[in-house]
């Protein structure tokens, strides 16, 4: 740290001699994120490697040994986690160390691998595929709360969505979903509402309050995407969907304002802007005249400036209270 500066600040009486002393003591060099990344990559490779290993050996005798190994490592992980975990609480608990978090994650991933394999090879759940997705989901949700693990919670939520038939991992949300399907739009709406409600409930009932961001994050995105898809797909009733979008955006806007969350404010504004622009362009281009195109260009220039001014004012309003 810039010692000279703090010496000057100390002379000016802005910081106490004790603080100056603390600044002067050479800090330790933290390898925290480096080691975390290493652990993350290790877990990613190990769970992925074992998954492929068992899949490739499916018709040989070796697969039973691999299956056994996966089960053993999985049990080992949960045993380690159980022994080292802090006492359970409905509030946030501090994990004993960074290693613990990744062991919990590895255990959960291997468990899902195990179940998936059992279903594929021995058909343990028969033709009730829903059950094959439901069972790991329950275990993931349980582990997330029991071991207080936000990463596992994200896995549980994506599993829940998959159980309903929607893919909501950040990258696959557009590539693997066919949002022109009516069923998917309604499922997406339902899923979004459920997740947002779960987030609100977490805060209100004080059940792992710090999980609410994760619920809201997935919920808000899927809800907006489903609403926008509805707006694009249902031509006849588009205006009703637009009103619904406007209503939802307003509700989430005020929710975000209350929580002082710049992140949710930004995504709400962006989704709402896409919806509004779609409707404006649609109306302007119906009679396909050159005036319509000019008006469209002016709309985008004007609305862009409008959004910028709005954002600047928003920042002014919420300043000094930065949070996610």
């Amino acid at each position, binding site marked *: 740290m810039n010692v000279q500066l703090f010496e000057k600040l100390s002379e000016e009486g802005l910081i106490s001699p004790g603080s100056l002393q603390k600044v002067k003591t050479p800090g330790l060099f*933290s*390898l925290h994120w480096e080691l975390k990344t290493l652990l*993350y990559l290790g877990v990613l490779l*190990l769970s992925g490697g074992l998954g492929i290993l068992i899949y490739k050996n499916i018709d040989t005798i070796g697969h039973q040994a691999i299956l056994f190994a996966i089960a053993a490592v999985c049990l080992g992980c949960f045993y380690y986690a159980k022994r080292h975990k802090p006492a359970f609480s409905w509030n946030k608990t501090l994990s004993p160390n*960074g290693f613990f978090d990744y062991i919990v994650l590895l255990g959960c991933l291997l468990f899902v691998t195990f179940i998936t394999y059992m*279903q594929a090879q021995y058909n343990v759940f028969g033709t009730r595929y829903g059950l094959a997705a439901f069972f790991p989901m329950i275990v993931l949700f349980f582990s997330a709360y029991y071991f207080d693990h936000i990463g596992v919670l*994200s896995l549980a939520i994506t599993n829940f969505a998959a159980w309903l038939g929607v893919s909501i991992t*950040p990258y696959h949300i557009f590539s693997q979903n066919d949002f022109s399907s009516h069923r998917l739009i309604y499922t997406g709406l339902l899923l979004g509402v459920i997740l947002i409600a779960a987030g609100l409930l977490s805060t209100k009932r004080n059940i792992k309050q710090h999980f609410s961001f994760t619920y809201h994050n997935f919920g808000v995105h899927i809800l907006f995407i489903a609403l926008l898809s509805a707006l694009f797909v249902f031509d006849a009733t588009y205006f009703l969907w637009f009103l619904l979008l406007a209503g939802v955006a307003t509700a989430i806007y005020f929710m975000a304002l209350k929580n002082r969350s*710049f992140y949710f404010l930004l995504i709400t504004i962006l989704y709402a802007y896409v919806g509004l622009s779609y409707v404006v362009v649609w109306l302007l281009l119906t009679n396909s005249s050159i005036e319509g195109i000019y008006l469209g260009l002016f709309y985008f220039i004007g609305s862009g*400036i409008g959004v910028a001014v709005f954002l600047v004012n928003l920042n002014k309003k919420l300043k000094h209270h930065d949070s996610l």
Partner: protein
Amino acid sequence: MIAYNKTDLENSWIQQDAKDACLKECITKEENKNIKAQYPTGLYTPNIFIRIGLFLATVVVGIFSLGLISLIMASSLSEETFGGISIFFALVCYGCLELIVKEKKHFGAGVDEALMWMAGGLMLTGFLLLSDGNFDNVALYVLVFLLGGFFALRFLDSLMAVVSFIGLLSVLFYITYKLGPIAKLIMPFVVMIASLLVYLAVTRLSKKATNRPYFNCLNLVSIASLVTLYIGGNYFVVREVGNEMFGMQLTPEDSIPGAFIFWTFTAIIPIIYIIMGIRKKDSILIRTGLVLVGAIVFTVRYYHSIMPIEGAMTIGGILMIGLAYGVIQYLKQPKHGFTYEEEQTEEGAIQLESLVIAQTMSATPQRDESFKFGGGTGGGGGASDSY
């Protein structure tokens, strides 16, 4: 040269240092608040999400304004007129940039960055269109170097500094390329030596307190130069780029002249970075080195599959978890000035990590019979400096 008021800048650094010290719990929140009040800065740097929003809004306004001008001129639209419009519009963007920086003191606020990129990009487009495709590569990258350098020097933008550095390397690359047959022999060394010189110059410059305005730019350029130094000597890059650019027509079994040297560079440079980083306690070297270890693995596996991928993944995973466990145990009590403890907790980082987990570790059982395990798609976030 710098577009910003000196006191504003200096006070913003003081605020930044105080904030860091406060996060590390060296000074109290009260003291941090007093320092902030004592050294006010007029610079406008909003919250990161507002910044992203402002950037997007400015780009929308820019694109549609350009569309409007083009539409008005539509009757006489040719490559030349569009080139002229591009340059005119680049100048308009630059004028707006100067204005917003002077009047509103935007500094890393989204609007200024969007205008900077649009001005630079349109200027290049304009030159390319006006020259009718006869634009020499060297001249093009000289322009990139100059534009990036100008924006970095005047508006202290670190990405622009990297653009300028890449421009410089490209200029050297194309000058060497024109030398003829000797080019393919010396090319890797030209790139490596240029990168090394830039790295040394940049680290020296960033030790001088008078260069404080440029610390962010210098840091980012130093990372970029470490990466290009490695790329210059990496076996995969040397072989494939050589094959592509010099038409060496290698078959898959062929090696390249001096393969041994490049294999040595490929394997050793990241290790040197990590060792130097640990000795100097330099996080840029350590993190760049760790990321480049991935490049070693990729390069080796591309040419020699020592074992099937799943075996390599399993063993690699066990080794990495074991290594991390060992180091964490070793550092339970801080040793040699290293610790495992976090310097400061950031809620945002944990949320980001959980998203990366949800994305890469697909633990979703497949519905259909053709059951495939998600191997996960690379992309280990976390080791970069700009977290």
